[in-house]
């Protein structure tokens, strides 16, 4: 491209030509402000996240030292503009339309202005673009034109999009402001050096330096500085407000429009402000971070309007007094220009990286706006709008707060230039409507974003709670299962015969088998298991008693002159003992057969006892007596086990119970009479009494049978119904009762069998008589115990 070939200039729609008022501040060049006593360095001087303080209160910092770090991608670090001591970190006055305070680092200046060691890069051409971008980022460079977007981010905004045009914005279209103008006049060489750095980073095909034709000195100086370079071109175009808007300048210089909502990088362009280029130059070639800027001090309230190179953080009051503020004339202090600036509420606030102008206006200069009148739909605003929007439509929608319509009307393409308000014959503060509507929409969007975020958090929390509940439920079930297993194992352990004296090799296996049994038993199985366990307890007791009298066996073996009957008893006892010894191993695995086996056992023991008694005759020896007593004990214990087994069974049928009680009473009466009869066999009265009592007994028996037949409880279970659990406190008593009942039960069952087999009652009758005989013998034993109970 030829540097001298005239480049075509386009025009932008709309625009206005307000009074320029630039000449007042250009007379003195760039002046330097004396060091202020205090600097206020807000942590938010740029767009994006607030910087994070990197120093402590009371720390001495040197000029150029990092005092706050960038917090995130779109953020900007902050450096000490001079040496001094950090006196505060906290809310401090802040130049903002709201007049609110913002977090800032307050620096007490020590006046020495002592630099940290700088690392200038003389030969930046040997460095990678990324390295240079990092240098620019670390130097805290953000756009100095107004928005304050971090420069390094802007330079790599669209990595996939090749930047073919770099536009340098020397327009400075807003009235009063001459900061860029003076920079171009007095620092043209540095600006061009800054452009060259960006050329090295971006490799654009062309560089266009756009300057309005109202700055002839700046144009001349810049042309001089550019010199023979063919890669960059100073483009001069007619003055019109707002040509200096980024999108407007691109349109003027290239004829291309940045898409709505897009960035210049989308069409391969990037636009940088003159002040930003100076900062880039300082950052790379001098190694100095962004700590100062050129600011215009102007307005009729100042005696000495000028441009100053001021340290960032310098209080506005200091600058104004430097420029000779006449407080009595000051009506309105504006930061920025008269079109886009905002009114400052306090002069305590400092200047920040984006402060290009301080306008101290008198009342004549910045008169209060006349009262707004209704829109007359004249359409002047639409003609003035550089963004080709429909300001009056936006105004009406903003009045009605119809945010959807505002968005549809591209409110966010409004650059808030104020041209519409300027031309409005009704003096409607249109821009204020747009700003308010924009901040409302942003707040709503933020709220929507937050509510989505909250919803997500809420849903995640619900999910988590759900998971936790499910986990708890699973754990609970696992625990319950474990507890059930433990219980089963415990029962198995309890069921495991505690008969170490008899057998110790066999039991563990049985116990293991038991333990391995699944816990899910059917109710019958469970009942049998419980019954087995109870039976085991009873068996254990019997074994204990056995172990308590082991000397008996020895005694038997040691006495050779033992009588034949006694030897028979011994043999029977040994046999019974053998039965007992083998019993435990079989018992746990076959709970169903337990009761039967125990009954058989008990019956055998009883038979032995009777045999021994018979053998002992009328005059039993001491030996025999002991033997008999022991056998009786055994038999009783065995009997006790049998009825104890089904103790936990079904509830007792009341009729059945009553019938049984009646029967037992009748039988007791019969037995008593029988006993009396044995002592005096010739008593006729007693015989008659026995006759009637036996009749009563038979009747009671019949009642019982009827009751049994009518009982709702099925026969197999009913047979066991009358067996009460062994009560701990009256165990002795119950054991005795159980013995008697077991005897009767036998007879009863046989009777039952006979009744069941209706066709053939003869064998049943025989059985009944046999039972009666057994019952008589057992009754004797029972009577002894009754007696012992009575004495007890």
């Amino acid at each position, binding site marked *: 491209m030829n540097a001298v070939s005239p480049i075509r200039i386009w025009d932008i729609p709309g625009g206005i030509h307000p009074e320029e008022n630039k000449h007042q501040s250009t007379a003195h060049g760039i002046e330097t402000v004396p060091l202020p006593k205090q600097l206020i360095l807000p942590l*938010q001087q740029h767009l994006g996240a607030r910087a994070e303080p990197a120093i402590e209160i009371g720390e001495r910092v040197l000029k150029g030292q990092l005092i706050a770090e960038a917090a995130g991608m779109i953020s900007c670090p902050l450096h000490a503009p001079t040496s001094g001591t950090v006196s505060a970190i906290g809310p401090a006055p*802040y130049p*903002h*339309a*709201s007049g*609110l305070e*913002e977090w800032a680092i307050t620096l007490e200046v020590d006046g020495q202005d002592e630099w940290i060691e700088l690392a200038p890069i003389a030969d930046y051409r040997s460095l990678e673009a990324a390295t240079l971008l990092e240098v620019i980022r670390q130097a805290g460079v953000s756009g100095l034109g107004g928005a304050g977007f971090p420069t390094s981010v802007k330079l790599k905004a669209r990595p996939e999009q090749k930047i073919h045009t770099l536009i340098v914005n020397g327009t400075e279209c807003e009235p009063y402001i001459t900061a860029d103008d003076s920079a171009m006049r007095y620092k043209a060489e540095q600006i061009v050096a800054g452009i060259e750095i960006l050329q090295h980073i971006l490799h654009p095909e062309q560089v266009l330096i756009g300057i309005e034709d109202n700055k002839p000195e700046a144009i001349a100086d810049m042309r001089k500085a550019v010199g023979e370079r063919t890669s960059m071109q100073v483009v001069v175009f007619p003055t019109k407000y707002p040509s200096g808007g980024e999108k407007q300048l691109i349109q003027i210089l290239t004829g291309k429009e940045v898409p709505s909502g897009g960035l210049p990088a989308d069409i391969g362009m990037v636009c940088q402000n003159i002040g930003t280029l100076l900062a880039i130059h300082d950052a790379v070639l001098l190694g100095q971070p962004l700590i100062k800027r050129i600011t215009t001090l102007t307005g009729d309230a100042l005696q000495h309007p000028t441009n100053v190179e001021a340290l960032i953080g310098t209080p506005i009051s200091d600058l104004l007094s430097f420029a000779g503020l006449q407080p009595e004339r000051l009506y309105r202090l504006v930061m920025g220009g008269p079109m886009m600036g905002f009114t400052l509420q306090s002069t305590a606030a400092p200047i920040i990286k984006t402060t290009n102008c301080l306008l101290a206006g008198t009342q004549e200069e910045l008169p209060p706006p006349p*009262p*707004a*009148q*209704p829109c007359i739909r004249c359409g002047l605003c639409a003609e003035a709008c550089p963004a080709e929007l429909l300001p009056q439509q936006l105004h009406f929608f*903003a009045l009605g707060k119809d945010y959807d319509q505002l968005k549809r009307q591209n409110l966010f393409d409004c650059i808030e230039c104020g041209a519409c308000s300027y031309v409005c014959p009704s*003096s*409607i*503060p249109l821009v*204020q*409507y747009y*700003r*308010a*509507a*924009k*901040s*409302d929409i942003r*707040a*709503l969007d*933020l*709220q929507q974003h*937050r*509510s*989505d*975020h*909250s*919803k997500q*958090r*809420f849903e*995640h*929390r619900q999910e988590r709670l759900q998971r936790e509940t499910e986990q708890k439920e699973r754990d609970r079930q696992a625990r319950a299962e474990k507890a059930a297993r433990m219980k089963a194992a415990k029962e198995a352990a309890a069921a495991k015969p505690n008969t170490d004296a008899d057998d110790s090799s066999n039991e563990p296996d049985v116990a293991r088998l038991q333990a391995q049994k699944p816990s899910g038993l059917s109710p019958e199985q469970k009942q049998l298991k419980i019954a087995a366990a109870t039976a085991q307890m009873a068996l254990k007791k019997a074994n204990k008693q056995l172990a308590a009298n082991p000397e008996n066996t020895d005694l038997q073996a040691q006495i050779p002159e033992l009588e034949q009957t006694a030897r028979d008893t011994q043999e029977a006892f040994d046999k019974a003992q053998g039965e007992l010894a083998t019993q435990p191993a079989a018992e746990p695995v076959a709970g169903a057969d337990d009761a039967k086996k125990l009954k058989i056992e008990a019956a055998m023991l009883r038979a032995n006892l009777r045999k021994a008694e018979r053998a002992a005759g009328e005059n039993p020896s001491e030996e025999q007596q002991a033997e008999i007593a022991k056998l009786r004990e055994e038999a009783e214990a065995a009997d006790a086990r049998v009825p104890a087994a089904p103790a936990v069974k079904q509830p007792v049928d009341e009729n059945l119970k009553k019938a049984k009680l009646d029967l037992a009473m009748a039988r007791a009466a019969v037995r008593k009479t029988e006993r009396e009869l044995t002592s005096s066999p010739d008593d006729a009265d007693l015989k008659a009494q026995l006759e009637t009592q036996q009749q009563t007994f038979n009747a009671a028996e019949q009642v019982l049978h009827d009751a049994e037949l009518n009982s709702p409880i099925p026969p197999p279970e009913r047979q066991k119904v009358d067996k009460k659990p062994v009560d701990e406190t009256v165990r002795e008593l119950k054991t005795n009762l159980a013995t008697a009942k077991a005897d009767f039960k036998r007879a009863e069952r046989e009777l039952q069998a006979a009744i069941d087999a209706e066709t053939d009652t003869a064998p049943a009758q025989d059985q009944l008589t046999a039972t009666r005989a057994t019952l008589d013998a057992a009754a004797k034993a029972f009577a002894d115990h009754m007696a012992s109970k009575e004495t007890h």
Partner: protein
Amino acid sequence: MSMILTAVLVLLGLALIFGAILGYAAIRFKVEGDPIVDQINELLPQTQCGQCGHPGCKPYAEGIANGEPINKCPPGGESTIQALADLLDVEVLPLDAEHGEEKPKMVAYIREAECIGCTKCIQACPVDAILGAAKQMHTVITDECTGCDLCVEPCPVDCIDMLPLPTTPQNWKWDFPLPGAAVIATDAQRGAA
């Protein structure tokens, strides 16, 4: 005869083809759930505060979908009622005072010196915005707090305050201009004058 038969067969064939397409579409493009509930839920402020009498925003959305009044959400306020009215094409109702009044956005603040570390507020917070552990001081993550008030009640030492969210330069909003002076008096103004 064969003409009629052909026509019947062709129509039958077409019916089968379109039936198959419709059947496939019914499965392929099946809409899960009730989309209106989700749309309503989108408009609710998601504070999960329960002031509407439902245990969260979604249940209230379901309630609204089933014909409940749209004016039971104090945190959402007028703008939510407006949005719901637009969505459901129903009349805009004033906020039902029974469920509370529209307040500026609040955030919970724990007076940390008084906190005993009971974790009750943590359990109450619907968005997990309170940080802390048993017998450790708790604090509120202000950015996550929805200002739902649910943590205030369970606190045994009453150390939680609901404070209005401070205005900062970041969340400050431009005011709309005050209405200008009317040059021509309207009937209403004449009556007032």
